């Protein structure tokens, strides 16, 4: 039976616990250093013991802990110390005071980050979700030895390290709010695309490292430039001899004034060449002048020289093809230059506005709350960043789906040196008992060595 407790993460008491709770994080954050001035040795020892015991096995009664306590502190000597020549850092021996707890199964599971607190690790063990070397162990005090493989049911690990699953009510409320906000955004974007675009650009970068798709400025610019290159290639592909000839003939036919070089203004510097082609066709009274559908134009240009008997026609076709080739090359060059100009340099801060971004924005239909409350699977949510109800994509799971890490996990994620962990399979190997070496202690503890020294003195009772 664990020790009974009340208000374990009391903010006014401010003890640090072996837990990933956010209140515990605040307690750790605001922890002031333990001061000894003006206190008797016994008071110093008592405070140190109280502080450290609140973290190391607070669920064990004091008498239980006293039987576990081992006064011999395990350290290592580094034989190459004299070869290195430099001064060897001191070995924090006092930090080994609570090392004998670390071999207990409950602690190993917490240290391997398969449970969010030691008390939760105990629950997992007692419920039969933990195996050591393939055998289910139901005793949190099971002592591990070097080489033991322990594992926790992955569902439990995902539950412990994942975000809290919202209730159906909360999920529906959240999604209703999200849909309203999204629809407001879409409406504003359609009405004032430029304003919304600029607001989006000015928005500070999200801190979300898991779900946010926002890229760094460098990557955004790179993606933008890649898109431009793609568009350029597609445009160049569309410009062919056939398309140019067809366009020349169409422009000439729709022209109201007599056809001259100025008729083909849209071709820019190639206008005289276009006029030349047109005049040549007119001079030869070619049938294409009257009917110039896409099929006929491509048919004419695909005729081989040898198939034409008439020498003049042969000459005409060759000349037209030659000039069209010149125009085609210059058009391609023009497209390339245009796209080069519109590319962004790495020093640019924002992406220029395009009205196309509103094309993909669609209003989301309202959520039918009553229907969703009756049958959750009928709720249709399809937002750009979320499919299915908020955190309840798979309502059968006990955690937030799709899986998201629990809040503030980064502050508590400490990879222990005495364990080798496979997160993929929720298995870990207990390599050895944690030891102290020059400059490092493998026992994970928030307290400095002088606090542990006094706690050790309290338990060893002979002084140090």
């Amino acid at each position: 039976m664990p020790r009974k407790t009340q208000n374990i993460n009391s903010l006014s008491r401010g003890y640090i616990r072996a837990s990933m709770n956010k209140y515990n994080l605040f307690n750790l954050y605001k922890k002031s250093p333990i001061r000894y001035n003006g206190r008797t040795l016994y008071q110093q020892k008592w405070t140190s013991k109280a502080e450290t015991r609140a973290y190391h096995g607070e669920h064990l009664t004091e008498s239980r802990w006293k039987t576990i306590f081992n006064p011999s502190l395990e350290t290592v000597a580094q034989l190459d110390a004299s070869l290195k020549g430099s001064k060897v850092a001191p070995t924090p021996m006092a930090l080994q005071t609570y090392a004998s707890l670390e071999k207990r199964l409950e602690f190993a599971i917490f240290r391997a980050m398969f449970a969010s607190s030691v008390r939760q690790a105990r629950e997992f063990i007692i419920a039969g979700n933990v195996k050591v070397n393939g055998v289910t162990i139901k005793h949190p005090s099971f002592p591990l030895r070097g080489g033991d493989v322990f594992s926790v049911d992955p569902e439990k690990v995902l539950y412990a390290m994942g975000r809290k699953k919202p209730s159906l009510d909360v999920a529906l409320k959240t999604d209703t709010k999200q849909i309203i906000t999204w629809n407001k955004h879409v409406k504003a974007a359609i009405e004032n695309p430029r304003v919304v675009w600029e607001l989006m650009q000015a928005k500070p970068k999200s801190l979300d490292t898991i779900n946010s798709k926002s890229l760094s400025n460098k990557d955004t610019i790179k993606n933008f430039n890649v898109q431009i290159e793609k568009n350029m290639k597609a445009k160049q592909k569309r410009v062919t001899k056939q398309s140019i000839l067809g366009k020349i003939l169409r422009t000439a036919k729709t022209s109201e004034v007599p056809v001259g070089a100025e008729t083909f203004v849209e071709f820019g510097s190639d206008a005289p060449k276009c006029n030349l082609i047109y005049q040549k066709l007119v001079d030869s009274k070619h049938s294409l002048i009257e009917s110039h559908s896409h099929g006929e134009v491509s048919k004419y240009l695909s005729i081989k020289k040898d198939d034409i008997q008439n020498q003049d026609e042969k000459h005409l076709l060759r000349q037209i093809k030659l000039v069209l080739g010149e125009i085609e090359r210059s058009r391609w060059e023009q497209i390339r230059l245009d796209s080069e100009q519109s590319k962004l340099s790495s020093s640019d801060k924002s992406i220029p506005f395009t009205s196309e971004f509103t094309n993909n924005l669609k209003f989301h239909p309202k959520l039918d709350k009553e229907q969703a409350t009756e049958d959750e699977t009928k709720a249709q949510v399809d937002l750009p960043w979320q499919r299915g109800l908020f955190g309840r994509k798979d309502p059968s799971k006990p955690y937030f789906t799709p899986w998201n890490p629990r809040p503030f996990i980064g502050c508590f994620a400490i990879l222990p040196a005495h364990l080798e962990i496979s997160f993929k399979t929720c298995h870990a190997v207990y390599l050895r008992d944690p030891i102290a070496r020059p400059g490092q202690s493998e026992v994970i503890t928030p307290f400095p060595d002088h606090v542990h020294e006094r706690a050790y003195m309290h338990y060893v009772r002979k002084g140090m």
Partner: protein
Amino acid sequence: MISSKTSFSIPRVASTSIQQVRYKRKLAYPQYTHKIPKQSFNKKDHSSFFQRAIKEWLGPKNIRGEYYRNKYYYPPQNHRPNYIVPDGNTIVGKESVGSSIPMGAQAFNRDPTLHPFPQNIYCKTSNILPHDLKGKIVEEVSKNGLHVQEVAHKYGIKIARIEGLLKLHDIEKNWEQEGKLNEDLTNYSEVMYKMFPLYQPPVGSDNLTEIPTPHKTLTQRFLTIAESEPFGPIEAAELLELPVASDTLSNLSNVETAEDQANSIKQEVVVGTQKEGDRVQFKFTTSKVGNVGFRYGASRRDTKKNRGVGFDSEGRMVYI
């Protein structure tokens, strides 16, 4: 400070009635510079100082219920841990009240990407082995046939860790074949993997010359010697009755072959053949009186407090 406002003060009355305060509990007020809003004049606002303090510390919530501006809310995903720095600035984009860390709240030389706790620099996070390095190690052992000890020297990783790694690799392979890895689990393992610093040898490699500190060296020894008498590691080893450190060091780097191991393990086994028609098979092993059965007159552990406990092969707790 608030502490002066809320701490208990001794009423100063006549000098004849001095009241002694034996136990004065100080509340754990934050020491960093803070600007915590006062209780509103709303009748229903019963929030305590600490409730308002943590609310301020967590920052605003977004629609999805995330403290989206708190710099510790989301885990780091660039192999660079982001452990707490107790300077009072947790909200990104908020005007800072003052960014000094209270005296003693953070140890000198502390690196927040390595030391998880501000006051204890002896506690460090370990490095995680990159996926490709793991693959290489497994290949060295299984395909190239290298001894674990050789691999340990090559990559600067302790033997126990390599052995553990090989065990876990087998389990992972089995799981992949059995199709036990689902999307959530892969997602979880990737998030965890990206949270820890990567092992990049030779930086952060293990010291392979470590041995458990001999207990004889933990106590003081006094020896009177002449001024001209030489005294070095060999003499020290002799005095402490320990093997010389240089010999131990060279022994550590010797690769133990399978033959050596076979020679070193001496297990006494008595084998008896089972005869035809025998109903039972007897196995003879040597044992000592006292280890088997009860010695007459010896005290029993089961009558004492804190009885020794052990576990049998099926994981059941048994008294020993």
